[in-house]
């Protein structure tokens, strides 16, 4: 099976552990204040079929600070609106002279489809409910800044795993690096089948169980519309799965709280947790830039 051009980053699932560590090491060398011009003369096209703040801006900042020229193509106001297929859009951008395409798409597998048919590196910036590899990598980067190593770390992921591409990337990535992962949420969000995603995953329905003794607590955004569709009352969800200071205290004393954002205070976590010293939520966003610098540098083979 065609895995795309060298330097493509389509998912974490097919990435080997040494490759992941290489990207993380490279990210640590990146300094957004004094960036090296690794992408000078390159054209990076940001193809966004979905709205995005964090991912788009940090990819753009990462690319520009390394000397690349960036072009943003969005689904509204482009030929995509006129019914151009994904592959034809890809061929068009390739002809325009793109060196790297960073793609965010609402349908799972879209970046892979592009990579199979184009000879330039494709970077997945989130596809449907499938994966969000750059977010997974920046989460790992953040964890590595706080903890010495991944081996033996106890990480709990709490919330809507089923609809979360971040959760899928994180599960693959952290198990590959040797962490122990517990998934926590109601059956609608964490079906039993979730445990088959990677080896050694555990599923629990009690947040206390997930929080107890954890090194890292990763929270996921919960959409109110989805709760309504699943006949789960919002109050019930909050009562059972919200991260509170009380529950945070059950975790290890040096545990950190992470969230890919955007956070909704009062739903998946309380305001106190979000602002507590253990919260690494803001830092995560900051770490997005060096991680994405490393990903783009790897795409052109200069990492």
């Amino acid at each position, binding site marked *: 099976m065609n895995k795309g051009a060298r330097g493509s980053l389509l998912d974490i699932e097919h990435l080997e552990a040494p490759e992941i560590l290489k990207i993380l090491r490279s990210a640590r060398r990146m300094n957004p204040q004094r960036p090296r011009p690794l992408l000078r003369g390159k054209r990076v096209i940001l193809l966004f079929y979905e709205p995005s703040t964090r991912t788009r801006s940090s990819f753009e900042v990462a690319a520009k600070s390394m000397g690349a020229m960036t072009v943003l193509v969005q689904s509204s106001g482009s030929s995509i609106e006129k019914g151009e297929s994904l592959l034809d859009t890809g061929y068009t951008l390739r002809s325009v002279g793109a060196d790297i395409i960073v793609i965010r798409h609402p349908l799972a597998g879209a970046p892979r489809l592009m990579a199979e048919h184009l000879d330039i590196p494709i970077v997945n910036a989130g596809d449907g409910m499938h994966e969000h590899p750059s977010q997974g990598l920046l989460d790992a980067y953040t964890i590595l800044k706080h903890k010495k190593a991944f081996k033996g770390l106890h990480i709990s992921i709490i919330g809507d795993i089923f609809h979360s591409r971040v959760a*899928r990337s994180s599960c693959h990535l952290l198990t590959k690096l040797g962490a122990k992962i517990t998934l926590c949420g109601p059956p609608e969000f964490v079906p039993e089948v979730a445990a088959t*995603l990677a080896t050694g995953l555990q599923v629990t329905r009690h947040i206390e169980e997930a929080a107890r003794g954890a090194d890292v607590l990763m929270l996921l955004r919960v959409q109110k519309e989805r709760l309504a569709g699943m006949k789960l009352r919002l109050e019930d969800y909050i009562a059972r799965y919200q991260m509170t200071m009380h529950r945070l205290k059950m975790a290890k004393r040096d545990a950190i709280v992470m969230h890919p954002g955007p956070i909704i205070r009062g739903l998946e976590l309380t305001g106190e947790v979000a602002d507590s010293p253990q919260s690494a939520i803001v830092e995560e966003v900051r770490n997005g830039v060096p991680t994405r610098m490393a990903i783009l540098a790897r795409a052109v083979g200069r990492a």
Partner: protein
Amino acid sequence: MACRRAWRFWRARWEERKNRRRKCRDGTRSMARKMRALIRIVPERETRSYSSLRKVARAPKPRAESPKSKMPNNKSKPASLLIKGGHVIDPASKIDAPMDVLLRDGHVVEVTPPNKIRGSAEEKFDARGLIVAPGFIDLHVHLREPGQSYKETIASGTAAAAAGGFTSVCCMPNTSPVLDSQEWVNWVRQPERGAVVNVFPVAAATNGSKGAVLTDFRGLQRAGAVAVTDDGKPILDNDTMRECLRLSGELSFPVVQHAEDTRQTEGCPMNDGPTSFRLGLHGWKTSAESSIVDRDVQLAQRIPNSRLHVAHLSAADSLKAVRRGKRSRAHVTCEVTPHHFTLTDEAVGDYNTNCKMNPPLRSAADIESLIVALGDGTVDAIATDHAPHASHEKQVEFERAAFGITGLETALGLAITKLHRDHRLPLARIVELLTSGPARVFDLRGRGSLARGSFADVTIFDPKKRWTFDVSKSRSLSRNSPFDGWQLTGKAVATIVTGRIVHRDG
């Protein structure tokens, strides 16, 4: 009228008794023992039919010619063809022995032990080392005409059928426009369409397959439709389905159900399971199929003489309902596709759109149940659900890709490789699933059998031939097959339609 009813009654009783004999009552028996039991039955019957056949062979005069064979002969069509030296498997006449077959004027004239043929033939076919079977019948193909000739035409689709050993195909009505009128049924059957094999249209059950107003079943049946269906869509409404089955009972006209509760499957491109979770796709649960099969079987049990056929059955749970229906003597039949007994949903891998079909590929446990059901007689036919699509409909995001794969050319190879070689299903059973089984489901008289007087539709195949399927050499206009590059065992060597060789391998 009374006479017809009586005849139908006795035939139904006879069929049902035959089914009961074959059916395995003890559900706990192991697969291997079931297979052994099946194998034991065949030789016993074969000796019995052998003597009766000899009588046939000695009959002084050949059967009076039917009016059909008096049609002006095609020049390339020999008036007679002798198939010599082959091993005949004809489950309808319980034959599984070396026999010679003589075809004349589009009909089977003699089936005798080797070198005992009395009549002479203008052409001979050397079938040494090959299996000679009645022509294969595919109950479920999409020929895409009228309206979608960029995917397939009746000519190209039937050419693919001939290459796969099929002499008759039943084409589905989800074309554009939908085959919901006598005019369109007639149009499909016209010789100008260039069909290479027999085409039996299946008409729409409701106008435009919209599920609301029933079509004119009587008229469609008169125009030559062999069944009705809204394939591609289910007949969801209880009252509509009840009315369909009531009419089907009156007219002895099968209703084919595409069992999918679309209320449960919206936005679901593949089976619910570890693979769908891994790929971040919404899962299509088996209950979306089995709930519809369940309801339909219940309706069929209540409506006298109604005939229900479940298309492309894929889930183990649906088999339970079918078994229950058969036990209660309702006329319930079902078909299974080669891809559903060969591939699991894991084959989707990383968004392989050639593994996207409706119903979706299921789990290994479902396959296991399907294979047991194929062996024990719960399943009546293997049907391909040949569904060609142009490349631009498949080279898109997985969720946007069209459902379906081509299947006519790989069906026999997959059946022999997977069912016979891997799971020890007897060859005679596989032939039955491709010939007499489907012929019974749609009442195709004179097809699916090599009995004297039946149509000279014959498939000659080599069950041991190993070959590699190359999709770029497919006769179909489309290339959407997940079996490209697969090593298969078993291939059609010659396909004979009404006495004329329409395909010859190599």
